Protein backbone atom coordinates (compact mmCIF):
# COMPACT_ATOMS: atom_id res chain seq x y z
CA UNK A 1 0.00 0.00 0.00
CA UNK A 2 1.51 3.28 -1.08
CA UNK A 3 0.92 6.24 1.16
CA UNK A 4 1.81 9.75 0.22
CA UNK A 5 1.21 12.51 2.71
CA UNK A 6 -0.12 15.84 1.60
CA UNK A 7 0.60 18.40 4.24
CA UNK A 8 0.90 22.03 4.88
CA UNK A 9 4.42 23.27 4.36
CA UNK A 10 4.36 25.29 7.52
CA UNK A 11 2.06 26.06 10.38
CA UNK A 12 0.20 29.29 10.62
CA UNK A 13 -1.77 29.77 7.47
CA UNK A 14 -1.11 29.22 3.80
CA UNK A 15 -0.31 31.85 1.24
CA UNK A 16 -2.90 32.60 -1.36
CA UNK A 17 -1.91 32.85 -4.96
CA UNK A 18 -3.94 33.73 -8.01
CA UNK A 19 -4.09 31.52 -11.07
CA UNK A 20 -3.98 33.05 -14.50
CA UNK A 21 -5.36 30.94 -17.33
CA UNK A 22 -4.55 31.66 -20.95
CA UNK A 23 -5.37 29.85 -24.14
CA UNK A 24 -2.40 29.02 -26.25
CA UNK A 25 1.22 29.23 -25.39
CA UNK A 26 3.76 31.83 -24.51
CA UNK A 27 7.12 31.31 -26.12
CA UNK A 28 10.24 33.30 -25.57
CA UNK A 29 11.32 35.37 -28.53
CA UNK A 30 14.92 34.30 -28.04
CA UNK A 31 16.34 30.92 -27.21
CA UNK A 32 17.41 32.10 -23.77
CA UNK A 33 13.99 31.14 -22.52
CA UNK A 34 11.34 32.79 -20.40
CA UNK A 35 13.18 33.03 -17.10
CA UNK A 36 13.85 36.55 -15.90
CA UNK A 37 11.75 38.16 -18.63
CA UNK A 38 8.78 40.42 -18.25
CA UNK A 39 5.43 39.04 -19.31
CA UNK A 40 3.30 42.15 -19.30
CA UNK A 41 1.18 44.51 -17.26
CA UNK A 42 -1.98 43.38 -15.52
CA UNK A 43 -4.56 46.08 -14.88
CA UNK A 44 -8.10 45.99 -13.58
CA UNK A 45 -10.87 48.28 -14.73
CA UNK A 46 -12.85 50.07 -12.05
CA UNK A 47 -15.49 47.42 -12.61
CA UNK A 48 -13.03 44.65 -11.87
CA UNK A 49 -12.34 43.37 -15.38
CA UNK A 50 -8.74 42.18 -15.73
CA UNK A 51 -6.84 43.68 -18.66
CA UNK A 52 -3.50 42.19 -19.68
CA UNK A 53 -1.07 43.93 -22.01
CA UNK A 54 1.39 41.44 -23.49
CA UNK A 55 3.69 42.65 -26.23
CA UNK A 56 1.54 44.12 -28.97
CA UNK A 57 -1.71 42.76 -27.65
CA UNK A 58 -4.41 43.46 -25.12
CA UNK A 59 -6.45 40.71 -23.56
CA UNK A 60 -9.65 41.21 -21.59
CA UNK A 61 -10.57 38.55 -19.11
CA UNK A 62 -12.60 37.93 -16.03
CA UNK A 63 -11.97 37.11 -12.41
CA UNK A 64 -13.56 33.87 -11.31
CA UNK A 65 -13.84 32.98 -7.65
CA UNK A 66 -13.28 29.23 -7.55
CA UNK A 67 -16.00 27.16 -5.93
CA UNK A 68 -13.42 24.46 -5.47
CA UNK A 69 -10.10 26.02 -4.56
CA UNK A 70 -6.80 24.55 -5.67
CA UNK A 71 -3.87 23.59 -3.50
CA UNK A 72 -0.47 24.07 -5.11
CA UNK A 73 1.56 20.97 -4.32
CA UNK A 74 5.31 20.61 -4.55
CA UNK A 75 6.61 17.10 -4.69
CA UNK A 76 9.28 16.34 -2.15
CA UNK A 77 11.29 13.16 -2.67
CA UNK A 78 13.34 12.48 0.40
CA UNK A 79 17.08 12.28 0.63
CA UNK A 80 18.82 9.79 2.90
CA UNK A 81 18.70 12.06 5.91
CA UNK A 82 14.96 12.62 5.92
CA UNK A 83 13.56 10.87 8.93
CA UNK A 84 10.69 11.60 11.22
CA UNK A 85 10.79 11.90 15.02
CA UNK A 86 11.04 8.15 15.48
CA UNK A 87 13.93 7.81 13.06
CA UNK A 88 11.88 6.19 10.32
CA UNK A 89 12.52 7.21 6.75
CA UNK A 90 9.89 9.45 5.29
CA UNK A 91 8.60 8.63 1.83
CA UNK A 92 7.61 10.95 -0.96
CA UNK A 93 5.49 13.84 0.26
CA UNK A 94 3.53 16.61 -1.33
CA UNK A 95 3.89 19.92 0.42
CA UNK A 96 1.10 22.38 0.09
CA UNK A 97 2.80 25.58 -0.85
CA UNK A 98 -0.18 27.81 -1.43
CA UNK A 99 -3.90 27.87 -2.04
CA UNK A 100 -5.61 29.32 -5.06
CA UNK A 101 -9.09 30.67 -4.53
CA UNK A 102 -9.35 33.00 -7.51
CA UNK A 103 -8.41 32.73 -11.12
CA UNK A 104 -8.13 35.20 -13.95
CA UNK A 105 -9.30 33.66 -17.18
CA UNK A 106 -8.49 35.06 -20.60
CA UNK A 107 -10.35 33.29 -23.32
CA UNK A 108 -11.15 35.86 -25.95
CA UNK A 109 -8.75 36.55 -28.79
CA UNK A 110 -6.07 39.12 -28.08
CA UNK A 111 -6.67 42.47 -29.72
CA UNK A 112 -3.67 43.90 -31.55
CA UNK A 113 -2.24 47.28 -30.64
CA UNK A 114 -1.44 49.14 -33.80
CA UNK A 115 1.57 51.33 -33.33
CA UNK A 116 2.81 51.77 -36.89
CA UNK A 117 0.53 53.32 -39.44
CA UNK A 118 1.90 52.41 -42.87
CA UNK A 119 2.01 54.89 -45.74
CA UNK A 120 -1.45 55.86 -46.91
CA UNK A 121 -2.85 53.76 -49.72
Amino acid at each position, binding site marked *: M*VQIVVSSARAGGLAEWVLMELQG*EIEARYSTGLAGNLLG*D*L*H*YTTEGTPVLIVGHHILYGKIIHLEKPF*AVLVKHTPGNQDCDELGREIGTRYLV*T*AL*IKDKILFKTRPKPIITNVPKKV
Partner: protein
Amino acid sequence: MKRTREEVDATLQIAKLNAAELLPAVHCLGFGPGASGAAAGDFCLLELEPTLCQQLEDGHSLVIRGDKDEQAVLCSKDKTYDLKIADTSNMLLFIPGCKTPDQLKKEDSHCNIIHTEYTTEDLLDQIQASEEEIMTQLQVLNACEIGGYWRILEFDYEMKLLNHVTQLVDSESWSFSKVPLNTCLQELGPLEPEEMIEHCLKCYGKKYVDEGEVYFELDADKICRATAQMLLQNAVKFNLAEFQEVWQQSVPEGMITSLDQLKGLALVDRHSRPEIISLLKVDDLPEDNQERFNSLFSLREKWTEEDIAPYIQDLCGEKQTIGALLTKYSRSSMQNGVKVYNSRRPIS
Protein backbone atom coordinates in the same frame (compact mmCIF):
# COMPACT_ATOMS: atom_id res chain seq x y z
CA MET B 1 15.00 45.64 -14.94
CA LYS B 2 11.96 46.77 -13.03
CA ARG B 3 9.31 48.72 -14.88
CA THR B 4 8.65 52.22 -13.66
CA ARG B 5 5.31 53.95 -13.35
CA GLU B 6 6.28 56.12 -16.33
CA GLU B 7 6.86 53.05 -18.49
CA VAL B 8 3.54 51.54 -17.43
CA ASP B 9 1.71 54.75 -18.22
CA ALA B 10 3.45 54.98 -21.60
CA THR B 11 2.28 51.47 -22.42
CA LEU B 12 -1.26 52.38 -21.42
CA GLN B 13 -1.13 55.33 -23.79
CA ILE B 14 0.11 53.25 -26.71
CA ALA B 15 -2.58 50.70 -25.96
CA LYS B 16 -5.14 53.50 -26.01
CA LEU B 17 -6.49 52.57 -22.59
CA ASN B 18 -7.97 55.28 -20.44
CA ALA B 19 -6.24 55.32 -17.06
CA ALA B 20 -9.35 56.85 -15.54
CA GLU B 21 -11.22 53.62 -16.21
CA LEU B 22 -8.58 51.52 -14.43
CA LEU B 23 -7.73 50.94 -10.81
CA PRO B 24 -4.49 52.70 -9.93
CA ALA B 25 -2.58 49.57 -8.96
CA VAL B 26 -0.86 47.62 -11.72
CA HIS B 27 0.83 44.21 -11.51
CA CYS B 28 4.00 44.04 -13.60
CA LEU B 29 4.34 40.35 -14.25
CA GLY B 30 7.66 38.67 -14.81
CA PHE B 31 8.85 35.11 -15.09
CA GLY B 32 10.82 33.62 -12.23
CA PRO B 33 14.22 32.03 -12.82
CA GLY B 34 12.72 28.57 -12.73
CA ALA B 35 10.37 29.33 -15.56
CA SER B 36 12.14 27.57 -18.40
CA GLY B 37 10.19 24.41 -18.09
CA ALA B 38 12.60 22.28 -16.12
CA ALA B 39 10.69 22.78 -12.93
CA ALA B 40 7.32 22.15 -14.51
CA GLY B 41 7.02 18.61 -13.30
CA ASP B 42 7.57 19.56 -9.70
CA PHE B 43 4.25 21.30 -9.23
CA CYS B 44 0.73 20.08 -9.45
CA LEU B 45 -2.67 21.45 -8.64
CA LEU B 46 -5.13 19.63 -6.41
CA GLU B 47 -8.74 20.70 -6.74
CA LEU B 48 -10.47 20.57 -3.36
CA GLU B 49 -13.91 20.45 -1.88
CA PRO B 50 -14.21 23.50 0.38
CA THR B 51 -14.19 21.30 3.50
CA LEU B 52 -10.92 19.67 2.49
CA CYS B 53 -9.44 23.06 1.81
CA GLN B 54 -10.44 24.18 5.28
CA GLN B 55 -8.70 21.16 6.79
CA LEU B 56 -5.47 22.04 5.05
CA GLU B 57 -5.79 25.62 6.20
CA ASP B 58 -6.24 24.37 9.76
CA GLY B 59 -2.95 22.57 9.46
CA HIS B 60 -4.22 19.01 9.01
CA SER B 61 -2.68 16.64 6.55
CA LEU B 62 -4.27 14.50 3.90
CA VAL B 63 -2.99 11.17 2.64
CA ILE B 64 -3.03 9.66 -0.79
CA ARG B 65 -3.38 5.91 -0.62
CA GLY B 66 -3.50 3.12 -3.11
CA ASP B 67 -2.14 -0.24 -4.06
CA LYS B 68 -0.33 -0.51 -7.34
CA ASP B 69 -3.35 -2.01 -9.08
CA GLU B 70 -5.91 0.24 -7.47
CA GLN B 71 -7.26 3.68 -8.10
CA ALA B 72 -5.67 6.17 -5.76
CA VAL B 73 -7.82 7.81 -3.13
CA LEU B 74 -7.37 10.87 -0.96
CA CYS B 75 -8.08 10.47 2.73
CA SER B 76 -8.79 13.07 5.34
CA LYS B 77 -9.32 12.27 9.00
CA ASP B 78 -12.76 10.87 8.46
CA LYS B 79 -13.54 10.78 4.74
CA THR B 80 -12.21 9.17 1.58
CA TYR B 81 -12.34 10.79 -1.83
CA ASP B 82 -11.75 9.47 -5.33
CA LEU B 83 -8.76 10.99 -7.05
CA LYS B 84 -8.89 11.78 -10.74
CA ILE B 85 -6.30 13.34 -12.96
CA ALA B 86 -7.33 16.04 -15.38
CA ASP B 87 -5.53 17.78 -18.20
CA THR B 88 -5.97 21.15 -19.75
CA SER B 89 -4.72 22.52 -23.00
CA ASN B 90 -4.73 26.02 -21.54
CA MET B 91 -1.69 27.60 -20.03
CA LEU B 92 -1.78 28.09 -16.28
CA LEU B 93 0.38 30.64 -14.55
CA PHE B 94 0.81 31.09 -10.81
CA ILE B 95 0.97 34.61 -9.48
CA PRO B 96 2.05 34.72 -5.84
CA GLY B 97 1.06 37.96 -4.17
CA CYS B 98 -1.44 38.96 -6.82
CA LYS B 99 -4.39 40.98 -5.64
CA THR B 100 -7.91 40.70 -6.92
CA PRO B 101 -9.83 43.88 -7.66
CA ASP B 102 -11.91 43.38 -4.50
CA GLN B 103 -8.80 43.18 -2.37
CA LEU B 104 -7.33 46.26 -4.00
CA LYS B 105 -10.48 48.23 -3.38
CA LYS B 106 -10.57 47.25 0.26
CA GLU B 107 -6.99 48.23 0.91
CA ASP B 108 -6.37 51.88 0.77
CA SER B 109 -2.96 51.23 -0.61
CA HIS B 110 -0.72 53.96 -1.81
CA CYS B 111 1.49 51.41 -3.47
CA ASN B 112 0.95 51.81 -7.13
CA ILE B 113 3.05 49.14 -8.73
CA ILE B 114 3.15 45.56 -7.60
CA HIS B 115 6.22 43.81 -8.95
CA THR B 116 6.31 40.09 -8.73
CA GLU B 117 9.68 38.49 -8.09
CA TYR B 118 10.22 35.20 -6.42
CA THR B 119 12.75 32.44 -6.82
CA THR B 120 12.20 28.72 -7.06
CA GLU B 121 14.70 28.19 -4.28
CA ASP B 122 12.76 30.42 -1.95
CA LEU B 123 9.65 28.40 -2.63
CA LEU B 124 11.14 25.02 -2.05
CA ASP B 125 13.16 25.92 1.02
CA GLN B 126 11.24 28.62 2.68
CA ILE B 127 7.75 27.91 1.51
CA GLN B 128 6.54 31.17 2.75
CA ALA B 129 5.14 33.48 0.19
CA SER B 130 5.63 37.04 1.12
CA GLU B 131 2.39 38.56 2.20
CA GLU B 132 3.37 42.09 1.36
CA GLU B 133 2.59 43.94 -1.78
CA ILE B 134 6.19 44.14 -2.76
CA MET B 135 8.28 41.64 -4.52
CA THR B 136 7.02 38.23 -5.30
CA GLN B 137 8.00 36.88 -8.66
CA LEU B 138 5.82 35.10 -11.07
CA GLN B 139 6.38 31.40 -11.34
CA VAL B 140 5.48 30.08 -14.71
CA LEU B 141 4.61 26.48 -15.28
CA ASN B 142 3.08 25.01 -18.38
CA ALA B 143 0.29 22.58 -17.66
CA CYS B 144 0.17 21.61 -21.31
CA GLU B 145 1.22 23.17 -24.55
CA ILE B 146 -0.51 23.94 -27.79
CA GLY B 147 1.07 25.70 -30.72
CA GLY B 148 -0.25 28.53 -32.79
CA TYR B 149 -0.48 31.35 -30.25
CA TRP B 150 3.00 32.62 -31.03
CA ARG B 151 2.06 33.43 -34.57
CA ILE B 152 -0.95 35.50 -33.66
CA LEU B 153 1.09 37.53 -31.29
CA GLU B 154 3.86 38.35 -33.66
CA PHE B 155 2.26 39.09 -37.04
CA ASP B 156 3.90 42.51 -37.32
CA TYR B 157 7.23 40.99 -36.43
CA GLU B 158 6.73 38.18 -38.94
CA MET B 159 6.10 40.75 -41.65
CA LYS B 160 9.30 42.50 -40.64
CA LEU B 161 11.22 39.24 -40.96
CA LEU B 162 9.55 38.41 -44.25
CA ASN B 163 10.52 41.80 -45.66
CA HIS B 164 14.15 41.19 -44.74
CA VAL B 165 14.05 37.85 -46.53
CA THR B 166 12.33 39.07 -49.68
CA GLN B 167 14.59 42.09 -49.97
CA LEU B 168 17.60 39.81 -49.70
CA VAL B 169 16.18 37.49 -52.36
CA ASP B 170 15.73 40.49 -54.61
CA SER B 171 19.19 41.94 -54.06
CA GLU B 172 20.84 38.55 -54.59
CA SER B 173 18.63 37.82 -57.61
CA TRP B 174 17.81 34.39 -56.30
CA SER B 175 14.95 32.34 -57.65
CA PHE B 176 12.02 32.11 -55.21
CA SER B 177 12.25 28.37 -55.39
CA LYS B 178 15.87 28.21 -54.33
CA VAL B 179 16.59 30.40 -51.33
CA PRO B 180 19.72 29.21 -49.50
CA LEU B 181 19.32 29.03 -45.74
CA ASN B 182 22.93 29.61 -44.80
CA THR B 183 23.36 32.77 -46.82
CA CYS B 184 20.15 34.12 -45.31
CA LEU B 185 21.40 33.45 -41.81
CA GLN B 186 24.73 35.03 -42.63
CA GLU B 187 23.35 38.18 -44.20
CA LEU B 188 20.38 38.68 -41.92
CA GLY B 189 21.91 37.34 -38.71
CA PRO B 190 23.14 40.80 -37.67
CA LEU B 191 19.59 42.13 -37.93
CA GLU B 192 17.47 39.41 -36.34
CA PRO B 193 17.97 36.22 -34.31
CA GLU B 194 18.81 33.25 -36.51
CA GLU B 195 16.01 31.10 -35.14
CA MET B 196 13.53 33.77 -36.16
CA ILE B 197 14.90 33.97 -39.69
CA GLU B 198 14.66 30.22 -40.05
CA HIS B 199 11.18 30.24 -38.51
CA CYS B 200 10.09 32.79 -41.09
CA LEU B 201 11.44 30.71 -43.95
CA LYS B 202 9.61 27.68 -42.63
CA CYS B 203 6.35 29.61 -42.37
CA TYR B 204 6.51 30.98 -45.86
CA GLY B 205 8.33 28.27 -47.71
CA LYS B 206 9.12 24.62 -48.02
CA LYS B 207 12.44 23.26 -46.94
CA TYR B 208 14.50 20.89 -49.05
CA VAL B 209 18.07 19.74 -49.42
CA ASP B 210 20.07 19.84 -52.64
CA GLU B 211 23.64 18.55 -52.78
CA GLY B 212 23.96 18.86 -49.03
CA GLU B 213 22.73 22.46 -48.84
CA VAL B 214 19.43 23.53 -47.29
CA TYR B 215 17.12 25.64 -49.47
CA PHE B 216 13.62 26.97 -49.20
CA GLU B 217 11.00 27.18 -51.91
CA LEU B 218 8.97 30.27 -51.09
CA ASP B 219 5.20 30.05 -51.23
CA ALA B 220 4.01 32.98 -53.33
CA ASP B 221 0.37 32.56 -52.32
CA LYS B 222 1.21 32.77 -48.63
CA ILE B 223 3.44 35.77 -49.09
CA CYS B 224 0.88 37.64 -51.20
CA ARG B 225 -1.79 36.85 -48.64
CA ALA B 226 0.26 38.08 -45.72
CA THR B 227 1.08 41.26 -47.61
CA ALA B 228 -2.61 41.86 -48.25
CA GLN B 229 -3.39 41.36 -44.58
CA MET B 230 -0.77 43.89 -43.62
CA LEU B 231 -2.25 46.44 -46.01
CA LEU B 232 -5.86 45.81 -45.09
CA GLN B 233 -5.58 45.65 -41.36
CA ASN B 234 -4.99 49.32 -40.86
CA ALA B 235 -8.04 50.67 -42.63
CA VAL B 236 -11.73 49.95 -42.66
CA LYS B 237 -12.03 49.50 -46.40
CA PHE B 238 -10.17 50.17 -49.62
CA ASN B 239 -11.10 51.09 -53.13
CA LEU B 240 -10.68 47.71 -54.82
CA ALA B 241 -8.86 48.92 -57.91
CA GLU B 242 -6.44 51.03 -55.90
CA PHE B 243 -5.86 48.20 -53.46
CA GLN B 244 -5.04 45.72 -56.21
CA GLU B 245 -2.52 48.11 -57.68
CA VAL B 246 -0.75 48.81 -54.38
CA TRP B 247 -0.90 45.19 -53.40
CA GLN B 248 0.78 44.04 -56.60
CA GLN B 249 3.47 46.66 -56.14
CA SER B 250 4.03 45.60 -52.53
CA VAL B 251 4.71 41.95 -53.14
CA PRO B 252 8.16 40.74 -54.20
CA GLU B 253 8.85 41.32 -57.85
CA GLY B 254 7.89 38.30 -59.87
CA MET B 255 5.01 37.20 -57.62
CA ILE B 256 1.51 37.56 -59.01
CA THR B 257 -1.33 38.65 -56.75
CA SER B 258 -4.82 37.31 -57.18
CA LEU B 259 -8.02 37.76 -55.20
CA ASP B 260 -8.28 33.97 -54.89
CA GLN B 261 -5.40 34.16 -52.45
CA LEU B 262 -7.56 36.15 -50.03
CA LYS B 263 -10.32 33.66 -49.27
CA GLY B 264 -11.30 33.81 -45.62
CA LEU B 265 -9.21 36.96 -45.20
CA ALA B 266 -10.91 39.72 -47.17
CA LEU B 267 -14.33 40.48 -48.57
CA VAL B 268 -14.97 42.18 -51.89
CA ASP B 269 -18.13 44.18 -52.43
CA ARG B 270 -18.89 44.25 -56.10
CA HIS B 271 -22.19 46.06 -55.72
CA SER B 272 -20.85 49.28 -54.30
CA ARG B 273 -19.55 52.05 -56.53
CA PRO B 274 -16.58 52.06 -56.49
CA GLU B 275 -16.04 48.40 -55.65
CA ILE B 276 -14.40 48.01 -52.28
CA ILE B 277 -12.43 45.43 -50.35
CA SER B 278 -12.13 45.09 -46.61
CA LEU B 279 -10.47 42.83 -44.10
CA LEU B 280 -12.66 40.06 -42.78
CA LYS B 281 -10.81 37.26 -41.10
CA VAL B 282 -12.66 34.05 -40.48
CA ASP B 283 -10.69 33.70 -37.22
CA ASP B 284 -12.35 36.83 -35.86
CA LEU B 285 -15.85 35.49 -36.36
CA PRO B 286 -17.93 33.69 -33.70
CA GLU B 287 -17.35 29.97 -33.40
CA ASP B 288 -20.93 28.99 -32.76
CA ASN B 289 -22.83 28.14 -35.96
CA GLN B 290 -25.89 30.33 -35.41
CA GLU B 291 -23.80 33.25 -34.15
CA ARG B 292 -21.47 32.89 -37.11
CA PHE B 293 -24.33 33.14 -39.58
CA ASN B 294 -25.88 36.04 -37.64
CA SER B 295 -22.64 37.96 -37.80
CA LEU B 296 -22.13 37.23 -41.51
CA PHE B 297 -25.66 38.31 -42.35
CA SER B 298 -25.35 41.49 -40.35
CA LEU B 299 -22.25 42.35 -42.36
CA ARG B 300 -23.97 41.65 -45.63
CA GLU B 301 -27.60 40.83 -46.29
CA LYS B 302 -27.19 38.46 -49.21
CA TRP B 303 -24.29 36.20 -50.01
CA THR B 304 -23.41 34.02 -52.95
CA GLU B 305 -22.16 30.58 -52.10
CA GLU B 306 -18.76 31.44 -53.51
CA ASP B 307 -18.39 34.41 -51.19
CA ILE B 308 -19.71 32.81 -48.03
CA ALA B 309 -18.03 29.41 -48.38
CA PRO B 310 -14.60 30.45 -47.01
CA TYR B 311 -16.34 31.89 -43.95
CA ILE B 312 -18.22 28.76 -43.02
CA GLN B 313 -15.76 26.14 -44.22
CA ASP B 314 -14.33 25.66 -40.76
CA LEU B 315 -17.76 24.88 -39.35
CA CYS B 316 -18.12 21.85 -41.57
CA GLY B 317 -17.53 18.63 -39.80
CA GLU B 318 -18.02 14.99 -40.62
CA LYS B 319 -21.73 15.47 -40.58
CA GLN B 320 -22.14 18.80 -42.28
CA THR B 321 -21.19 20.09 -45.67
CA ILE B 322 -21.39 23.69 -46.78
CA GLY B 323 -24.65 22.89 -48.55
CA ALA B 324 -26.13 21.41 -45.41
CA LEU B 325 -25.11 24.41 -43.30
CA LEU B 326 -26.61 26.79 -45.81
CA THR B 327 -29.84 24.86 -45.86
CA LYS B 328 -30.06 24.87 -42.10
CA TYR B 329 -29.09 28.42 -41.31
CA SER B 330 -30.15 30.43 -44.32
CA ARG B 331 -32.80 30.93 -46.92
CA SER B 332 -32.01 31.07 -50.61
CA SER B 333 -33.42 33.10 -53.44
CA MET B 334 -32.49 34.10 -56.96
CA GLN B 335 -31.10 37.51 -57.74
CA ASN B 336 -30.22 38.45 -61.30
CA GLY B 337 -29.99 34.81 -62.22
CA VAL B 338 -27.61 34.02 -59.36
CA LYS B 339 -28.50 32.05 -56.25
CA VAL B 340 -28.04 34.07 -53.08
CA TYR B 341 -28.45 33.28 -49.41
CA ASN B 342 -29.83 35.44 -46.65
CA SER B 343 -30.83 35.13 -43.06
CA ARG B 344 -33.81 33.04 -42.04
CA ARG B 345 -35.00 35.69 -39.65
CA PRO B 346 -34.60 39.44 -39.37
CA ILE B 347 -31.27 40.56 -38.00
CA SER B 348 -31.45 43.56 -35.68
